[in-house]
């Protein structure tokens, strides 16, 4: 048995205008979990796509189980025991788990009939063996994301995969689900499977992998053992410079002025179900209030109510003396509330518009851009856009480029530039670093801190607990549509926060008979 499940030597893969993989050597030991770490665009997914047969490398060798292979397609890779679980699942939502897994390899009885029972049995056996609990008869579109991922993994195993490639598996999981995945990976190891974990999350790489290979700009920076390294070292390898991980608490002392008060807000989600059940918050100037919580507890809806994008069913929202309750987005904008939306493609930008036209979205009614409804100053728009592009480092050929042609990080920079230059008194930042690489994340946090220091009241909603802990001056935990605790990030511990996020109360309090 060859020591290496997979060996890739000197892989070069070019695309028009960019060398995605520039002479990469990569070796996956049998039975290990090997992390492939790198910023967005470093070449991790491309390398694995080459292994999977989706791309053919211009140069280089691929050796699978000791046998070299060239110019093969994914069907061949699957036959050789390589399975890939993509970041965006490839499941048919309306079919059941079993139907999805057996798609293309359906067991037949009596020559013609679909042998569903055989498939269900086989799938159940896999599920048991690898510790991946799933329900073969459930419909995929009703499953939580973590379970859908397990279906994808079993799908690969069902086809005889010995080597698994998981592309950003933790991007869509809750902390609990990440734990489950970690257990599953250990089980897979026991069964002799080898796994490649593509990720840009440092903590997970260290926590789940045996070895880690760091890629930067298409080249291998180094391969280390997880136990022998730390986050700082990995981050440096990823970006090539000392990444600032220090904490920036506010230097402002004394009583902070209240900018926005939220009392007893209730609201329904898109399905008409109560999602906010009484939120009380106070946003203060010179302060970042972080909202920690597992996705699905009302964060998104909270951000929408605080920016006029969702009707409240009860409660009041005050900005200073003005009562903004029940008003639309326009009133909130005019009142000086800036919003960095969680979904930049849906809300933050009109993707088919140019940067010029996006830079004024929300501000287009200002007289500097449009002195009357019948006249829009094109020159002023262009000048303003150029200012944002320069001041906020938006990489783009011109102000007339379409928003959809920019990378996620640059799109976010434009949005932040637009919101920040309003000099708002309140900034609602919802998942502002989602989907960004280390450089982009750093930048966004810098901007938020800057705004705080200049006197804005910042509300940061983030699924990334580390981010919330690092950046906030106060932390509010949201659980089941309510704020269950407000903590000081200096004194709170992660375990306590985790419990609050996952169950709404701390176990010591629960033992004392306090039901939540």
């Amino acid at each position, binding site marked *: 048995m060859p020591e290496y499940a997979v060996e890739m030597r000197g892989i070069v893969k070019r695309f028009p205008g960019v060398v995605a993989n520039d002479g990469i050597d990569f070796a996956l030991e049998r039975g290990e979990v090997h992390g492939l770490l790198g910023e967005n665009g470093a070449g991790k997914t491309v390398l694995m796509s080459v292994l999977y047969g989706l791309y053919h490398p211009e140069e280089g060798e691929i050796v699978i189980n000791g046998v070299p292979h060239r110019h093969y397609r994914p069907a061949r890779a699957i036959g050789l025991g390589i399975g890939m679980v993509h970041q965006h699942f490839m499941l048919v939502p309306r079919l059941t788990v079993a139907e999805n897994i057996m798609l293309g390899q359906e067991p037949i009885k009596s020559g013609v009939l679909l042998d569903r029972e055989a498939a269900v049995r086989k799938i159940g056996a896999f599920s048991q063996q690898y510790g991946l609990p799933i329900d073969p008869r459930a419909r995929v579109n009703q499953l939580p994301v973590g379970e859908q991922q397990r279906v994808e993994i079993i799908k690969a195993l069902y086809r005889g995969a010995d080597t698994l490639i998981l592309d950003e598996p933790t991007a869509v999981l809750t902390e609990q689900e990440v734990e489950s995945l970690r257990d599953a990976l250990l089980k897979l190891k026991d069964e002799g499977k080898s796994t490649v974990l593509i990720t840009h999350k440092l903590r997970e790489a260290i926590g789940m992998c045996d070895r880690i290979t760091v890629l930067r700009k298409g080249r291998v920076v180094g391969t280390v053992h997880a136990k022998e390294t730390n986050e700082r070292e990995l981050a440096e390898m990823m970006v090539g410079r000392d990444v600032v991980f220090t904490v920036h608490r506010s230097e402002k002392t004394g009583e902070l002025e209240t900018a926005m008060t939220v009392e007893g807000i209730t609201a329904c989600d898109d399905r008409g179900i109560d999602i906010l059940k009484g939120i009380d918050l106070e946003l203060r100037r010179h302060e970042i209030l972080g909202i920690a919580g597992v996705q699905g507890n009302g964060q998104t809806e909270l951000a929408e109510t605080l*920016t*006029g*994008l969702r009707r409240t069913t009860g409660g009041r929202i005050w900005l200073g003396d003005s009562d903004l309750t029940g008003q*639309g*987005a*326009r009133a*909130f*904008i*005019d009142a000086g509330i800036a*919003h960095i*939306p969680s979904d930049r493609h*849906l*809300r*933050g*930008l*009109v*993707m*088919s*518009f140019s940067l010029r*036209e996006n830079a004024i*979205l*929300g501000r*287009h*009614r200002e007289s500097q*851009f*449009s002195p*009357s*409804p*019948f*006249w*829009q100053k*094109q020159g002023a728009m262009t000048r303003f856009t150029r200012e944002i592009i320069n001041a906020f480092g938006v990489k783009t050929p011109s102000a007339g480029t379409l928003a959809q042609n920019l990378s996620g990080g640059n799109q976010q920079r434009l949005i932040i530039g637009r919101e920040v230059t309003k000099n708002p008194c309140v900034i609602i930042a919802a998942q502002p670093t989602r989907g960004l690489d280390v450089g982009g994340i750093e930048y966004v946090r810098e901007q938020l801190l800057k705004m705080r220091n200049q006197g804005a009241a910042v509300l940061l909603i983030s699924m990334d607990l580390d981010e919330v802990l690092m950046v906030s001056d106060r932390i509010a935990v949201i659980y089941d549509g309510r704020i269950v605790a407000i903590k000081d990030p200096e004194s709170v511990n992660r375990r306590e926060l985790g419990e609050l996020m996952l169950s709404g109360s701390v176990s010591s309090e629960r033992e004392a008979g306090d039901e939540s």
Partner: protein
Amino acid sequence: MLVRETGVTLLSISLAFGIGCIILWAGGYSIPAVFANLWKGAFGNKISIGQTLTQATPIIFTSLSFLIAFRCGLFNIGAEGQMYMGAMAAAVVGIYVKLPGVLHVLICLLAAGAVGAAWGWIPGYLKAKRGVNEFVTTMMLSSVAVYFTDLLVAPRMFLHDTRYGSNQTVRVLGTAVLPKLLRPTQVTWAIIIAGCVVLLVWYYLFRTRSGYELRAVGQSPSAAEYGGISVKRKIILSMCLAGFVAGLAGAGEVLGTHTRFISGFSPGYGWDGIAGGLIARAHPVGVLFSAFLMGALRAGSMQVQRSGAAPGDIASVLQGLVIFFVIAPTLIRRLIRWRRR
């Protein structure tokens, strides 16, 4: 980008004509004879060109009508009906209101636009407030308008011209008539007005705040809402504007081509507007080209019919093919997005 778009359109037209040739050949028709007559009818002499321009004029308006609604993400299928309502309004003001020359024409145009806008407001309001599919409402209201105006000019009705058997009004007053431009053709000042409206629509969509908001709603209602734009108001506004412009189409026919309201005066200009708007890729200036093309096809097909080289329907076949090749990819992309809403 623009060069590529134009190239694609020209290529599509060539493909359409190519397939058209195959169809003609399969039907046993003489391809040279058909195309010769097509050309003759559209561009052969001054009369022909006049016919092309006369037919193109109302199509410019109805194409703009479709385009404005399209830019807001709506399908205005009812330009035909909005045109009829506007035509009736123009006729009424043209016959019964006494005003000096240019002023009379202006008031007639405004009346036509206003009534057309009102006819567009109905589906707009229903869509905005109740989510009613505008495709259905505009189409249905179109039928209502055509039959309603027919009723108004039927015998024994007040507006009917008793000297004639057919359903039509008397001639509008001299002061309301749009003067002819190209004697002895039927081309009138209506085409000049149409050209001006093209520029106005372009300016509105691309240089005004309101047009910006309208386009934002059309491209991304969620982002528009985020930017503080009232999506509902823009939907209603776009349908009103669409109706207004279609109403002007009717005014052009009543005050210019026919100088009276004749029931059923439109051989389908409203429907051609849908094609015209789509072929122009929803760009106002492109409408000049697509409406001209439609007008030429109509004028040419009349000659083909007359000459007996092929049934006049060949123009419809060609028109259909052109639409298919030019807009199929764009339309499919749009329809997918529209259905998701």
